[in-house]
C-alpha cells in the first residue's frame, strides 16, 4: 500500500499514514518532550516571547498594507493608519507596544538563564543561538523605528549609522552604503522597510527554530540546575520530567492570559507609556536640519547607549588602568609560557590603542564598548566557572553580584534616557565598569565562596 503504519484513528489516522512527520514532530517537541517538573515563574518568558513574535508578525503584516515606505509619504501614512484606517490605531498600538514587550520578555528570559546557569554545558548552543536572536531583535527594532519617519526615527538612525563611520579605512564608505545616499533619505527608508518586513523576520524565525531544536536536543535546564536525564525511570523517561503537552501547554496558557492582561492594559490605556514606549518627538515629521533638543533611543537600547556616551577621551585612561590590571590578573592566572606571552601581548596592544601616542579615538572606543556590551553575552558559557549551575546552590553573595550587575544595567538605562551632564557621565562610567567587570571577572568570582551541596533530584512540592 505504501502507507505509513499509524497509531491514530479516523481523519488523523488518514492524515498520519500519508504525512507522518507532522505527528512525529508533535510527539518529539510536545507530547513526548519531557521538561523538568519544577519550572517556576521565570520559565514563562520563553513561550511568551513566541506569543509576542506572533503578535508582531500579524500586526506588522496588517500595518504594511497601509504604510508607504516613501520619505514624502511615510509620516502621513502612519497618521492615516492612526486616524482613518478602521481599527488602524489598535493594530499600530499592538505593534508598538509589542516591540517594547518583546524586549521586556527577552530581558527577563535572559535573566532567568543567568539566575539558573541555563547556558552551562551542554546548553552552550541554545545560549549562543539565543544571543543571536537578541542581536537580530535589536536589528529588527532599529530598522523598524525609522519607518514612522518622525524626528526620533531620523536622528536615531543618523546616530547609529554614523557609528559605522568611526571604523578605520572603510567606515565612511560603509555608512554611505548602508544609507544608500550621503544623508539619510528615501533610499534609506525604502531599504529599512524591506529589512524590517522581509529579511530580519525571516532570519529571526529561523533562529527561533534553531533555538528550540537546540533546546529540545539537550533538554531544558531547571531552577535547581540539575540534569533530569541523569535519573531515568524504568520506561526510560526522566523521573523528574513531565510531557510538555499537556502539562506545560496548559501552564503556559495561564501565563499567556496574565501576560495579555498586562499587554492590552498598555495598548488601551498607556500606549505611549509616558513617552517611553513611543517618544514625543517622534510625532513631529523628520527634519534633517533640526536635531530635537533632547534625543534618546528607545528604552531598551539606553543601557548600551549610555556606555557609548560615557566613553570620553578622559575615560580612556581609566579603561587603560582596568585593562592593565586585568592583564596582570590574567597573566598570573593562566598557566604555560605561550599563553602568558599571548596575554601580555594582547594587553600591550590594547594599552597602545587606548593611551599610546597614536591611540584610537574615544568615539571608536565608545562604539567598540557598546558593541562589546551586547556581544559579551556570547562568552557567558565559558566565563562562568561556578561548580553549581543554579544560584540556589551558590554562595549567597553571588546573588548580590548579579543584583549589582542588574542595578548597573538599570542605572545605565535610566541615564541613557536623560540628557548628559558631567555628574551623570561619571555615574555612567562607574556603571559601565560594573557592567564589564561582572563578565570580565566572572572566571574568578564565580568559583569563590562556599557552595551548597547540589541535590540529586529536583526540589518540587506539588500544588
Amino acid at each position, binding site marked *: 500500500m505504501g502507507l505509513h503504519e499509524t497509531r491514530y484513528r479516523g481523519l488523523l489516522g488518514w492524515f498520519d499514514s500519508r504525512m507522518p512527520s507532522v505527528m512525529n514532530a508533535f510527539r518529539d517537541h510536545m507530547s513526548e518532550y519531557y521538561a523538568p517538573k519544577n519550572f517556576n515563574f521565570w520559565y514563562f518568558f520563553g513561550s511568551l516571547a513566541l506569543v509576542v513574535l506572533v503578535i508582531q508578525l500579524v500586526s506588522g503584516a496588517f500595518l504594511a498594507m497601509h504604510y508607504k515606505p516613501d520619505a514624502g509619504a511615510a509620516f502621513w501614512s502612519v497618521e492615516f493608519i492612526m486616524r482613518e484606517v478602521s481599527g488602524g490605531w489598535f493594530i499600530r498600538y499592538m505593534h508598538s507596544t509589542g516591540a517594547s514587550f518583546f524586549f521586556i520578555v527577552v530581558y527577563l528570559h535572559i535573566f532567568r538563564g543567568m539566575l539558573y546557569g541555563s547556558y552551562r554545558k551542554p546548553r552552550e548552543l541554545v545560549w549562543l543561538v539565543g544571543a543571536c536572536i537578541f542581536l537580530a531583535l535589536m536589528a529588527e527594532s532599529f530598522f523598524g523605528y525609522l519607518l514612522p519617519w518622525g524626528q526620533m526615527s531620523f*536622528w536615531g538612525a*543618523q*546616530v547609529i*549609522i*554614523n*557609528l559605522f*563611520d568611526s571604523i578605520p579605512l572603510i567606515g565612511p564608505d560603509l555608512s*554611505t*552604503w*548602508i544609507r*544608500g*545616499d*550621503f*544623508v539619510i*533619505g528615501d*533610499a534609506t527608508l525604502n*531599504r529599512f522597510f524591506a529589512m524590517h518586513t522581509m529579511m530580519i523576520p525571516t532570519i529571526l524565525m529561523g533562529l527561533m527554530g534553531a533555538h528550540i531544536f537546540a533546546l529540545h536536543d539537550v533538554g531544558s535546564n531547571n531552577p535547581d540546575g540539575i540534569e533530569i536525564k541523569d535519573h531515568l525511570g524504568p520506561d526510560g523517561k526522566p523521573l523528574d520530567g513531565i510531557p510538555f503537552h499537556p502539562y506545560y501547554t496548559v501552564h503556559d496558557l495561564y501565563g499567556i492570559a496574565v501576560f495579555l492582561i498586562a499587554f492590552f492594559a498598555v495598548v488601551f490605556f498607556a500606549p505611549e507609556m509616558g513617552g517611553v514606549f513611543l517618544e514625543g518627538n517622534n510625532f513631529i515629521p523628520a527634519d*534633517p*536640519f*533640526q*536635531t*530635537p*533638543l*533632547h*534625543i534618546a533611543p528607545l528604552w531598551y537600547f539606553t543601557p548600551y547607549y549610555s556606555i*557609548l*556616551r560615557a*566613553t*570620553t*577621551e*578622559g575615560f580612556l585612561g581609566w579603561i587603560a588602568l582596568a585593562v592593565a590590571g586585568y592583564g596582570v590578573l590574567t597573566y598570573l592566572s593562566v598557566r604555560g609560557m605561550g599563553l602568558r606571552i599571548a596575554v601580555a601581548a594582547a594587553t600591550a596592544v590594547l594599552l597602545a590603542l587606548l593611551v599610546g601616542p597614536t591611540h584610537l*579615538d*574615544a*568615539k571608536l572606543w*565608545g562604539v567598540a564598548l557598546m558593541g562589546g556590551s551586547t556581544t559579551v553575552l556570547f562568552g557567558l558559557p565559558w566565563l562562568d566557572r561556578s561548580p553549581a549551575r543554579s544560584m540556589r546552590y551558590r554562595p549567597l553573595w553571588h546573588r548580590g553580584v548579579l543584583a549589582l550587575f542588574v542595578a548597573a544595567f538599570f542605572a545605565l538605562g535610566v541615564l541613557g534616557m536623560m*540628557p*548628559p*551632564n558631567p555628574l551623570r*557621565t561619571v555615574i555612567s562610567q562607574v556603571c559601565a565598569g560594573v557592567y564589564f567587570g561582572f563578565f570580565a571577572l566572572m572566571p574568578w568570582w564565580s568559583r569563590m565562596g562556599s557552595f551548597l551541596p547540589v541535590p540529586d533530584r529536583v526540589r518540587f512540592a506539588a500544588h
Partner: protein
Amino acid sequence: MPSDATAPEVPDIDRERRAALLATCVVGGAGCAAAAVPYIASWGPSEREKAAGSPVDVDVSSLPAGKMQVAEWRGKPIWILRRTPEMLAALRLDTDRLADPDSKRTAYPTPEYALHDPSTRSIKPELLVVVGICTHLGCSPSGPFPAGENPQLGDEAGFVCPCHGSTFDLAGRVFKNKPAADNLPVPPYRYLSDSLIRIGEDTKA
C-alpha cells in the same frame, strides 16, 4: 536505519564523474559569488543621488552681525554665522580649552584657505561657514548660545550637540574631553562676490 544484508555494495568512486561534479560546483559557486555583486552594489548611492551634490549659492548680504543662517548642501545643513568683534576676540582666548585649536587633525581636513587664522577658521574673519553636523555621530548641534546661557557650555559661547553633549566654540572647534574629537567640518566654498558664497566648490576647482 535498519541494516539490510542485501543492500548493494557501494561501487568505486567514478573519478571522472566526481571531477565533473566538483568542477560544476566550483563554477556554480563562482557564478553565485558574481551574482552577489549587483545585489551588494544595489545598496550604494544611485546615479541620481550621486548627481545631486551640485554647489549652492548663498546670499549673505542681509545677515546681521551675531546671527546665523542655514543653507542646504548635499542634504546637510550649512551654517553661516556672522560673528561680532567680541565673538572673534573670545575665540583667541579659549585655545587651551579646545581639543584641536589649530584644526590639525585630518579626519575632516579644514581647507587651507580657511586656516589663515586658526582661531576664525574662515576666509573672511567674521563669516563662519561650517557643516552643522557633529563629527561624533552626526546630530545637528543647537546654537549659537551666548556665553553663560547654556549649562553645558558654561562661560563659553558656542554650540551644543543634543545627542551626546559635545560642545563647539563659535569657530566650530570642539572643546576638550567631549565625545567628538574633530572640529565641525568646513565645506569647500568660495566668494563669488562680497556677499555671495558658493558652497560645494572652491577656488581650486
